[in-house]
């Protein structure tokens, strides 16, 4: 925990809002790195945009890993009584699949969008603590790699992604897989927690003049809610993981039933985190479609304050429903009844969002470019996931459905049909802003339709399988009990999904090659005729974001500068985005890159490995962390003055 306590000392006032220059020499041992070009600069960058891109790339990498694991699961279940994976391997594969997808794909993909877009959308030049931001990314990556290292050191975790005690205990899972799980998630948790503090401060404190809270783009609002949820949920899972680690490695007794422990302790801790986690996963996608749908419908978002407040309401209500994951765990009927009721009513704010999106499209002139296709699919598919969710809130009915494939179908409709559809839409939407060129539309539509069909063919049948009584986490099933047909259908679906993802990668590659062959034509700052501040800077976004801090006077300020009412009261275009955008020629003073976040992050998995294997490794990790933190604190707050073109009076500050 020491890591997250650092900011008080080590994060002095940042360059962006530096205190009056205090004439002191810089104190560090080493010069700060200054390189912002070339591949090595990615390791030291503190630029929120590059960090966002790295989050996205890492999430896509882990998506491939988790996707391959999903493919193995479907392969094994394609036909009854197969032995492609034995029980042991199968249990590892589905555990690693679920954990990877949730913690190392959907969370970082959300973080990618939030890192890249939130500062731009609030009109800031970077996040509040750029080095901490880099630290968050590297720590997340360290956690993800560490977690997956289990594959090479005796096998992955085999306890299911929620890893119920006592099955996760040493007696029942004697390998190191569960240790990798607990420590890997712990490391990733540090990343999320530090990121949450950073982004919360950014959105609250770094808003441009006039950007009041109720003028924030909805994506930024949802991101803020997500970060608040992370801020409060992560410590709970941290405690649960600590207890598990202490039990397994230091013989503590937290889940030792022999000694009188109650196995439900883990479930409560896990789900108190786990349910807010569900909203952590889905709200970024809600924010993304709330940006995309108005742009492509060419109308403002219907009921902005209601969409915002329903997001906040979800954020609050999400804390009061965790035990609906435990309807069959053996809680008393009073608890079950109470949590059933709260769960039913959390559907209300979600429904409000769905209807507002439909109402936004209503009466619009909807341009079905690829981002819009994905967004519309999210509205439809999430509705299915939401409705099956309501079914689960009927607690007695849930006792038939929970732990069957009906649940598997439900959460894939929510996480794939919801979160991932939103992310894909977001990638197509913001791609030109990030990389300077659009992704090809024709291939994009191929990607969308194969994705849509494959998704429904994979997860739709799971509803039927669940109602027919097929339990989840079954390595195989018998013939002649009604499971064969739909299992085969789901496996065919996953093959289509695999192809769909290849089309996406192909599209990325071909779009880039085509753009390059055409001499990299400028896509312009505002290729979609959009509404928020990130479109008022050039594409790709200049290193310093804004030449001048923008001043905002209303929601969708950019759009209202492009369009105004004519005599008849109708909106007419008065300017193009390109005319209004900032030229990107400024040279504001920016935070310098730093080695130290990477050093500290690299130390963490060493400590974790040391706890498991040999104290020596922990010592190495400890040296890296302590040394890194020391270097961080005493590092020159900035590169040497002649390394950048800041005005002379900008002296180094404590940083």
């Amino acid at each position: 925990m020491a890591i997250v306590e650092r900011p008080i000392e080590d994060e002095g006032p940042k360059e962006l809002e530096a205190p009056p220059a205090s004439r002191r020499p810089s104190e560090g041992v080493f010069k700060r790195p200054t390189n912002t070009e070339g591949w090595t600069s990615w390791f030291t960058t503190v630029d929120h945009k590059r960090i966002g891109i790295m989050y996205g790339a890492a999430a896509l990498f882990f998506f491939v890993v988790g996707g391959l694991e999903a493919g193995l699961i479907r392969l094994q279940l394609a036909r009854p009584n197969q032995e492609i994976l034995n029980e042991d391997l199968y249990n590892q594969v589905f555990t690693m699949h679920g954990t990877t997808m949730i913690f190392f794909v959907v969370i970082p993909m959300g973080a990618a969008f939030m890192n890249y877009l939130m500062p731009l959308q609030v009109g800031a030049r970077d996040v509040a603590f750029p080095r901490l931001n880099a630290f968050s990314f590297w720590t997340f990556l360290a956690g993800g790699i560490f977690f997956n290292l289990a594959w090479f050191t005796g096998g992955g975790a085999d306890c299911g992604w929620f890893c119920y005690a006592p099955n996760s205990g040493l007696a029942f899972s004697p390998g190191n897989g569960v240790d990798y799980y607990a420590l890997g998630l712990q490391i990733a948790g540090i990343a999320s927690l530090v990121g949450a503090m950073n982004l919360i401060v950014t959105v609250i404190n770094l808003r441009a003049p006039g950007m009041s809270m109720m003028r924030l783009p909805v994506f930024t609002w949802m991101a803020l809610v997500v970060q608040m949820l992370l801020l409060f949920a992560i410590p709970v899972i941290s405690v649960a993981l600590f207890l598990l680690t202490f039990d397994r490695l230091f013989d503590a007794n937290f889940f030792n039933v022999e000694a009188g422990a109650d196995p439900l302790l883990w479930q409560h801790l896990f789900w108190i985190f786990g349910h807010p986690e569900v909203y952590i996963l889905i709200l970024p996608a809600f924010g993304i479609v709330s940006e995309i749908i108005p742009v492509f419908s060419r109308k403002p978002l219907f009921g902005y304050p209601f969409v915002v407040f329903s997001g906040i309401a979800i954020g609050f209500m999400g804390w009061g429903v965790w035990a609906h994951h435990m309807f069959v765990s053996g809680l008393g009927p009073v608890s079950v009844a109470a949590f059933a009721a709260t769960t039913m009513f959390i559907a209300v704010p979600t429904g409000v969002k769905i209807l507002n999106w439909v109402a936004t499209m209503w009466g619009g002139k909807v341009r079905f470019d690829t981002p819009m296709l994905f967004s519309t699919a999210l509205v439809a598919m999430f509705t299915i996931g939401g409705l099956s969710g309501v079914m689960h809130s009927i607690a007695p009915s849930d006792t038939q459905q929970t732990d069957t494939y009906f649940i598997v179908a439900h959460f894939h409709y929510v996480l794939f049909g919801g979160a991932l559809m939103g992310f894909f839409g977001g990638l197509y939407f913001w791609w030109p802003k990030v990389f300077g060129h659009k992704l090809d539309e024709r291939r994009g539509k191929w990607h969308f339709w194969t994705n849509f069909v494959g998704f429904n063919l994979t997860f739709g049948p799971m509803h039927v399988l669940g109602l027919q009584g097929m339990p989840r986490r079954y390595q195989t099933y018998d013939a002649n009990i009604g499971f064969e047909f739909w299992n085969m259908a789901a496996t065919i679906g996953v093959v289509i999904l695999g192809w769909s993802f290849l089309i996406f990668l192909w599209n990325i590659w071909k779009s880039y090659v085509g753009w390059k062959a055409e001499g990299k034509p400028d896509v312009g700052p505002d290729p979609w005729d959009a509404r928020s501040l990130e479109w008022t800077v050039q594409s790709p976004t200049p290193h310093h974001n804004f030449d001048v801090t923008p001043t905002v006077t209303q929601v969708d300020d950019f759009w209202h500068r492009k369009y105004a009412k004519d005599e008849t009261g109708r909106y007419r275009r008065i300017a193009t985005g390109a005319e209004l955008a900032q030229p990107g020629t400024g040279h504001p003073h920016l935070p310098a890159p730093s080695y130290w976040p990477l050093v500290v992050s690299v130390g963490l998995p060493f400590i974790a490995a040391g706890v498991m294997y040999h104290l020596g490794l922990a010592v190495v990790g400890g040296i890296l962390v302590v040394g890194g933190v020391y270097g961080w604190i005493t590092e020159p707050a900035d590169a040497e003055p002649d390394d950048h073109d800041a005005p002379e009076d900008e002296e180094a500050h404590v940083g």
Partner: protein
Amino acid sequence: MSEITGAADRLRSQRSVMSDRTTRRLLGLVALLGLVVAGCASDAPLDTLEPQGGPARSIDGLFNAVWWVATAVFVLVMGAVIYVSWKFRSKRGADGEWDDDEELPGQVHGNTRAEIGWTIAPALILAVLAVPTLAGVFELANWHDDAEVEIEVYGAQWWWEFRYPGTDVVTANTIVFPAGEPIELTMTSYDVIHSFWIPALNGKRDVAPGRTHTWAIEADEPGTYWGQCVEFCGLSHANMRIRAIALPRQEYEDWLTEQQALQPAEGPVADDSYLETVRWAETPLVSPEAAQRGYEVFGQFCASCHVVGGQYEAVAGGIAPLISGHAPDLTHFMTRTGFAANIYDLYEEDGSVNVAELRQWVWRAPEMKGMAPDEMRGMPSFAEQMTREQVDDVVAYLMTLGGEPTLPSGVDLSEADILRRAD
């Protein structure tokens, strides 16, 4: 895919007699997938939509209600999405680009009345659903209040044990109970969390170590039902089935009496009438002498974990060298219909004993079902310790334990054994 064409044929021929359930499932599929394929197998013994007892029917009623509400909402929302996507779509100009000169649509920012409407409407619907839901929660929690029969359920890696309080009766993986009345289940686990689920008779309930949960099952009619473990419990989670046998009350009482008889202390009994019943005499490897030899071999290798009431009781009381401390009680082994937690059938459809797989199981159990004997979880392989002949003898001995398989009168093995591991 002969299933597809077959399913289509079935659909045509069965349309007139299609049950409400089938329609419902079909509707869901049509809605979810846009596929008009009937995949509903008639032989789905774990189907959650075919309740055959009070608690399950009560749940099914709730499910029906919420299903129709959800379907209605689904149709409305999906209809709206498709409608606006079609009606309000923008068109591309001749150059393939969106026509930028077209007029902007009306810039509607919202409508408070609509917002309040679609906040309150779902809340009201949910409030209406909440009433039977909460009632249902308490109804199910109290279902066993008037139960006359209580059965203790124990989960273990990876099998089930059932004990009948007030008697010494212990069974493994087969729960026998009287039909037509609520049964109180008192459940706990010997090791990790499992979950007890017989879909036709009630929803599931976790079976957790260190905790005692009460739950009920009830079957309207005598018959056989399938259940299985549904809380992930490690390696062989998928191989942990429950055979539930509901008997008429009198047959149940008879069964209970029969189960209380212990095996004779001096060794196996195999008289001619018994040979006739189980048809084991047809298999050449077994004989009364073999059974007697098997009895001794059992004492050497198997009795360190398994209990046979009257003969081997050294580890009764949970002191078997396993993490759970228990292995299946084999006192009336042959009265069950399956072994290895019902993954394998004990009898062939013609009533003869499934000697081939039983023999394999005794000899090399870990190859037939995922287990971790090195970690004291599950049955070890005896391939190194036992000769083939000794294995055959143990099988011959096992076949003396208990009489005919327990089934309600009128149900024969070919009907009862739907779950088959083979092929």
